[in-house]
């Protein structure tokens, strides 16, 4: 004798069972998510670092496209422990919408700062020849220090025509 299962969707309770199964699966998923977040609340905290920038913005002097902008900032470690500093630059956007992804070269690329030490971070931004004149704005950020950074504006001026001999 052969007893076949009902086809999926047959029977008066099939839809109810399906909904119940979906409900249980979702409940399990949300409960797990909640428990993991709760577990995260009780995890040990890693003391971190916050970047406090002054009101000054970093603005380059007007430089023609094809040349290189050189800027620098000082970083002072006011914590009681050493910390690593790794600077980076966000994409720079011009008001017309042109976005410039600079290939900035930092010197040094990373720096280990002792307590109360002040370091100079210099960086060079080569401006591509095809960059249209304007002011390109972005941020200088230090990786891993939450939000915050220094507003950065790179001014690109029209190239000076070469005087005829």
């Amino acid at each position, binding site marked *: 004798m052969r007893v076949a299962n009902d086809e999926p969707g047959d029977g008066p309770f099939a839809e109810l069972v399906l909904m119940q199964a979906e409900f249980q699966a979702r409940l399990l998923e949300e409960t*797990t*998510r909640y428990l*993991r*977040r709760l*577990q*995260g*609340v*009780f*995890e*040990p*905290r*890693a*003391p*971190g670092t*916050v*970047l*406090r*920038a002054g009101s*000054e*913005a970093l*603005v380059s*002097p*007007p430089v023609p496209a094809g040349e290189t902008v050189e800027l*620098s*900032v*000082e970083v*002072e*470690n006011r*914590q*009681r*422990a*050493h*910390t*690593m*500093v*790794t600077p*980076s*630059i*966000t*994409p*720079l956007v011009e008001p017309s919408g042109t976005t410039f*992804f600079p*290939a*900035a070269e930092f010197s040094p*690329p*990373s*720096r*280990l700062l002792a307590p109360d030490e002040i370091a100079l971070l210099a960086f060079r931004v080569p401006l591509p020849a095809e960059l249209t004149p*304007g*002011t390109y704005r*972005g941020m200088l*950020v*230090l990786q*891993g220090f939450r939000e915050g950074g*220094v*507003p950065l*504006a790179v*001014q*690109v*001026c029209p190239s000076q025509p070469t005087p005829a001999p």
Partner: protein
Amino acid sequence: MTTDPRSGVGPAEASTPAPGQAPPRLLLVDEPDGSGRTTATMLASLAARLAALHTISGADAIGALTAGYAALGREFARTADGRRLFEAITRGRAGGNGEQLWDTLLIGKWASSLPPTPVLDQLRNDLALLLAPDLDAAFELPPIPAEIAGVSRTDPEPATPVHYLLGMWVFACEVIAGIEALAAATMPPRSQVVRADSAQPDVRGPLLP
């Protein structure tokens, strides 16, 4: 001060240091809502992290680390260099295969449900402990309970394979730079000659009478 007609930079930003003037200074300070980075608090945090490993599952620990690398990669992807690396990986085969592995093996669902571990903070604190001048004194103190992450803990966010790779890259660069900086002060030159000490007497024994 007037606006530069060539560039449109207004007075609010016209704070470029003049030649010879000190550049802008950024301050690195402790988080306002914590006890700060001291040898004692970093040691307590490390000890608590090690202790927590005995109370959580391996899946939770590795998942939180994976989420931490992805969060670091997400932050790095906002920079120009990070964006370039992100697009390169996304366009290549690694991006497609990564997504496939991530989805099929449910890695993304798993890592996205866990609060990300602050991997860079932990690394920097561990490096700072290695350089701490008062580590002996911190060990002699009564054990300090580590602060808990509390509600300030970063909530889970979607973890993608490309962000995870970016985070691993940033972390690896930081490890290399950090270890090189630790060793820099006492690093011998790469090219050096060590001469045999002629004043030392020969070792005599059964093999070298």
